[in-house]
């Protein structure tokens, strides 16, 4: 317990850039493991403490005219790209209505990248005191309570958002977030057997089974990701950047 707390204190000191280094570890995401596989190794990486804000994204647009709503290609962002930027939000509120391509371009502009789904889920499984609270019914219910609230775009306020054990804020409770490989395959051994997947549409010998069936909150995140296209924009979908551990 002491070592966990010590790690939390160390990790929670962002070094100016608004990002923290998450230590290497092992993690069992809800999907993606082969049959019989217990978990994945996660290398240490850096992750923004908060989702990218509207003000930060505005600075990117200032420097990158090609990504402004009036010039971006419809191949790279839907019509309602940044539509909500006209609404009266705090400039600190997370930028939303931003496509994957734009999010990736923003992170690249900062010399960074989007987190992988594995990295994002690894970070998001932590609560304020433990690294992996995904099996804790109270933690899962707290997330589900947020998912069950209708979104009020005027209330995308970061104030009062708790820091998890790594020092990362607002992975739950504000907006959904893009990951670099969100278009991963999303099937379980079960639904393949049920024949829901038409024969021959999918290649792969190993079944990606669900490791933690009780984690309904994670299931919803995977369901949302599988419904997205890289040009999608949603008023409840933002992102944060990741990078190599320092």
């Amino acid at each position, binding site marked *: 317990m002491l070592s966990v707390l010590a790690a939390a204190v160390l990790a929670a000191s962002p070094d100016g850039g608004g990002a923290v280094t998450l230590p290497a570890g092992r993690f069992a995401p809800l999907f993606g493991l082969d049959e019989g596989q217990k978990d994945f190794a996660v290398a240490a990486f850096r992750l923004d403490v908060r989702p990218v804000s509207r003000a930060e994204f505005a600075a990117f647009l200032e420097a990158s005219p090609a990504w402004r709503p009036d010039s971006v290609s419809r*191949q790279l962002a839907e019509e309602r790209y940044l539509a909500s930027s006209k609404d009266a939000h705090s400039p600190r509120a997370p930028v939303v209505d931003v496509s994957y391509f734009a999010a990736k371009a923003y992170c690249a502009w900062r010399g960074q990248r989007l987190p992988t789904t594995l990295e994002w889920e690894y970070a998001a499984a932590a609560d304020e005191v433990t690294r992996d609270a995904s099996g804790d019914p109270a933690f899962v219910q707290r997330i589900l309570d947020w998912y069950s609230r209708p979104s009020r775009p005027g209330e995308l306020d970061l104030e009062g958002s708790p820091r998890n054990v790594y020092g990362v804020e607002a992975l739950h409770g504000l907006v959904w977030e893009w990951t670099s490989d969100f278009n991963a395959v999303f099937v379980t051994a079960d639904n393949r057997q049920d024949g829901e997947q038409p024969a021959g549409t999918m290649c792969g010998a190993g079944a990606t089974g669900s490791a933690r069936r009780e984690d309904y909150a994670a299931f919803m995140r995977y369901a*949302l990701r599988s419904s997205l296209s890289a040009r999608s924009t*949603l008023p409840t979908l933002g992102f944060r950047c990741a990078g190599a551990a320092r």
Partner: protein
Amino acid sequence: MRRPLALAVVLAAGLAAAGDGAAGRSVLAVETAWRGEDGARVSLSKWKGRWYVLSFVYTSCAGSCPLTTKKLLRLDAALQKAGKPLPTVIVSLDPAHDTPAEVAKYRERYGLTGAPRFSVLVGDDEQVRSLSLLLDFRYTRNPESGVILHDNVVYLVAPDGTVRTHMSSLAEPLADFVDAVPAPAPRR
């Protein structure tokens, strides 16, 4: 467990995306960089101005990839028979494994050695991910076991780089795909 309202939103979004399809997507909207089998750098804009068939495989795949490749061979034969021969571009989903030697073995296995209509492109994981995202093509590589799960989609790409039609299942008949290819202009 309470039933979250947001689930309805998730499902609605899923249905919308499912009906969207790949038609109209441009493989040139983001520049992707590859190496051909001769080791030379190549971009998909090399095929700009031409109709071509595009698909993804990985050469060590033991699942349905052999079937995908066989389907590409049958499609190639059907296009020839219809008087509309097209280039076929095969993109590797496993750049770390699919070395030139492995690609040569793959060609040999399917009788494609020296078949000029077929090109196999190998990039890196980021290039594959970028192209997959342009096409709404789903794939996952298990970093520890190397197992790759992926859609089985064959795309017809128009001269401007946009997808004209696609076959999303191995069971889908070839006829509609072949019909979607315009007959070549008569030579003068």
